[in-house]
C-alpha cells in the first residue's frame, strides 16, 4: 500500500492522465462545451476543478484546452499576443509536460490556440479552435453584482442597463469609455463578454471560421461562438462602434492596421510602437518587411 506522500511523489514524477484531467472530468467539460456551442453566447455553468495553477491565471482556458486536446494537436499559447510572456510560457510548459503534445508559436501551424487578451492578427481557419481565458464571464457584472439578477436579465434578454451605461459614457465623455472587454451580442441573442481583449479584436470574432471557446475557471462558466456566427459589438446608430487606430506602423516590421504595444525606451519620452502579435511581426520580417527602426532594436538590447 502506498501512503499519500508516496503517491504524491509518483504524481510529481509524471504519472498524470493525458492533459492532466481525468477522463470523467473531461467528459463533463465536453458536455458543457457542446451545450455552449448549441446556445451561442450563453454561459454554461460547469464543475470547474482546482488546477495546479492559481485561479485567475487561466484555469478555465486550461481546462477547456485539456478537454479538447488530442495527441495529434499542435498547441500555441499566447498572452498579450506574445508566445513569450511568462504565463503563456508556463501554460505551454504545463501541456508539454502533461500531454507531450507538439507546440508551436506559428499561428498558421496551430490546431488549438489558447489566448489571454488577444486574437491573432492572421485570420484563423475552420481547422482551428481558439480558447480564450476569461476572468469575469458576465458582461453585466459591473452593472449588477448579483448572479441571481444577471441570470434573469439574460433569460429575458433584458439588456437595457448595458445600453444605458454605453449612452451615459457618450453623454459624459463623448465616447464609449470601454476599450477592452467590449460587450458583443452573439447570434442576435446573448450579450457576451469577449474576455478582456482590446475592442480592436472584436471584429475578428464576427463570422470567424474557427470555433471560439471561452473558459472561466474561478467563475465556473464555459461559453462558445460556433464558426460563422454573427457577433455584433454594441453601439448606437449615431455612435457606431469603432476600433482603436494607431497613427504609425509597427517600428519593427512596418505593419499597419494591427494592434501595437507601446514600448518605453528611456525616461525622456522615447518610445516605439511594435506589433502586439509577436508571431505576426516575425512572419512579416521573415518575408522581408522592415519598419522604421530598421530591425529589432529590442533584440539587440536583450543580447547585450
Amino acid at each position, binding site marked *: 500500500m502506498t501512503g499519500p506522500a508516496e503517491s504524491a511523489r509518483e504524481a510529481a514524477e509524471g504519472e498524470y492522465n493525458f492533459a492532466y484531467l481525468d477522463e470523467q472530468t473531461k467528459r463533463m467539460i465536453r458536455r458543457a462545451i457542446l451545450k455552449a456551442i448549441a446556445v451561442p453566447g450563453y454561459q454554461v455553468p460547469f464543475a*470547474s476543478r482546482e488546477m495546479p495553477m492559481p*485561479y*485567475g*491565471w487561466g484555469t478555465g482556458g486550461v481546462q477547456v484546452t485539456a478537454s479538447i486536446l488530442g495527441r495529434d494537436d499542435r498547441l500555441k499559447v499566447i498572452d498579450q499576443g506574445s508566445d513569450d510572456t511568462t504565463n503563456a510560457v508556463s501554460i505551454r510548459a504545463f501541456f508539454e509536460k502533461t500531454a507531450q503534445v507538439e507546440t508551436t508559436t506559428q499561428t498558421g501551424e496551430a490546431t488549438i490556440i489558447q489566448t*489571454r487578451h488577444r486574437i491573432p492578427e492572421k485570420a484563423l481557419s475552420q481547422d482551428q479552435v481558439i480558447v480564450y481565458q476569461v476572468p469575469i464571464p458576465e458582461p453585466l457584472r459591473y452593472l449588477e453584482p448579483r448572479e*441571481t439578477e444577471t441570470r434573469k436579465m439574460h433569460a429575458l434578454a433584458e439588456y437595457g442597463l448595458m445600453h444605458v451605461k454605453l449612452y451615459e459614457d457618450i453623454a459624459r465623455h463623448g465616447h464609449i469609455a470601454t476599450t477592452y*472587454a467590449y460587450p458583443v451580442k452573439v447570434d442576435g441573442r446573448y450579450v457576451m463578454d469577449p474576455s478582456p481583449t482590446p475592442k480592436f479584436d472584436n471584429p475578428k470574432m464576427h463570422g470567424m471560421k474557427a470555433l471560439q471557446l471561452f473558459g472561466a475557471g*474561478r467563475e465556473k462558466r464555459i461559453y462558445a461562438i460556433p464558426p460563422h456566427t454573427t457577433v455584433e459589438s454594441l453601439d448606437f446608430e449615431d455612435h457606431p462602434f469603432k476600433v482603436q487606430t494607431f497613427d504609425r506602423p509597427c517600428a519593427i516590421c512596418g505593419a499597419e492596421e494591427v*494592434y501595437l504595444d*507601446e514600448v518605453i525606451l528611456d525616461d525622456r519620452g522615447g518610445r516605439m510602437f511594435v506589433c502586439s502579435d509577436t508571431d505576426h511581426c516575425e512572419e512579416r520580417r521573415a518575408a522581408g518587411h522592415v519598419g522604421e527602426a530598421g530591425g529589432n532594436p529590442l533584440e539587440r538590447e536583450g543580447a547585450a
Partner: protein
Amino acid sequence: MYVAVKGGEKAIRNAHRLLAHERRGDRTVPDLTLRQIVEQMALSVARVMAEGSLYDMELAALAIKQARGDLIEAIFLMRAYRTTLPRFGYSEPLETAKMLVRRRISATYKDLPGGQLLGPTFDYTHRLLDFKLAAEGGEVPEMPELAQPDPQEMPRVTDLLGHEGLIEPDVPEHTPESADEDGEVGDLTREPLSFPAERDIRLQNLARGDEGFLLALGYSTQRGFGRTHPFAGEIRIGEVEVEFFAEELGFAVPLGRVSVTECQMINQFQGSAKAPPQFSRGYGLVFGQGERKAMSMALVDRALRSRELGEEQGAPAQDEEFVLSHSDNVQATGFVEHLKLPHYVDFQAELVLVRQMRREWEERNRQDKADAQEAAE
C-alpha cells in the same frame, strides 16, 4: 526588458531555482522535518487540512514546508493535490455526540453532564512571550495526567435543550426552503455553486472558507451588522470515527478517526407564524483544532439563515451571494494576484482613449477661454 525579448522560459526557471534556494534558507540550520511540523505547528497543519479540505497531516506539513510557511499557499497546494485523488464515495454523517473529547466547554451552563473540560487551550494564558522557548533544548514540559471522559456521559448541549423542545430540531422539518426531500447532500466540488444555496452547500462552503474572512464577518454580526444574539452553547474538540457504507457488505465500516472542532451556537429566535419561540442554531465544524474558525463559521451560518427564518436581511454576513462567492481564499488569492500578470494590451487600449479624451478636453478648454476673452473684449 520584460517581455519584448525572448527568455521568459529561462527567467521562470531561474526564479524557481532561486525560490528553492531561499526556501531552504541558511544551510547551517537543520532542515525542518515533516514530523516536526506535524508535532509543533499542529494548528497550522489543522488550518491547512481544514481549508484545503483534505485530512492528511503529513501532506499538510509538506505543503507548509514547501510554501515556506505561507498557509494560503499551502492550502492551495493541498487543494490542487486533492483534485487528482479518486473519489470512492461519501462517508456516513459524523456522530459528534460520540466524540472522544479532549476539550469541551459550554458558555450557557455553569455545569452540565460530563462537565467542562478545558483541554489544551490558549484561553487564560497570559500573552507574555515565553523566553524559555527561545533557548535551544530547553526544558521539556511534563506530561500532565489526563482525564478520561466517557463519551456516553457527555451529551451535546443542544441535545439537552432539545429534550425540552426549546431549540429547533437538528433536522428541520421539510419546508420548501429546506434541503432536498431525499436528504441528498450537495457537493460544490462536483457541482458549480448556484443561488439560492441550501444550508448543506452553505456549510460546505464555510467549512472550506478562509478563517480570516469568516472571522471578520462573524465579528460584524456581533457589532450589529445582522445581529444574531449568539451564545456559545458548546465547543468540543476531539476525535470522531469516520464510517463508510460499503455496498458489498450492506453495513457501514469504520475507516479511521479524524480530529475535529465543533461549535454549536445557540441564538435567540422570537418565533414566527410557523414556528414557536425557541432557540435557533448556528453550526460550525472544522478539521483539527480550529476553534476560532468553528465559532466564526457558526456565527456566519446563523446569519445566512435569515432568509429561511424570515428575518430582516441586509447586513453583509446575511448576504448569501456575497459571503459564499468570496469566502474561498484559493479563489480570492488567485484573482487578486493575477493583477501581477501582464495587462499591457488592455492598458494600451486605455492609454489610447485617455490621450484622445485629453486632447479633446484641452481643445474644449482653449475654445472656452477664447470665447470668454472674446466676450470680455
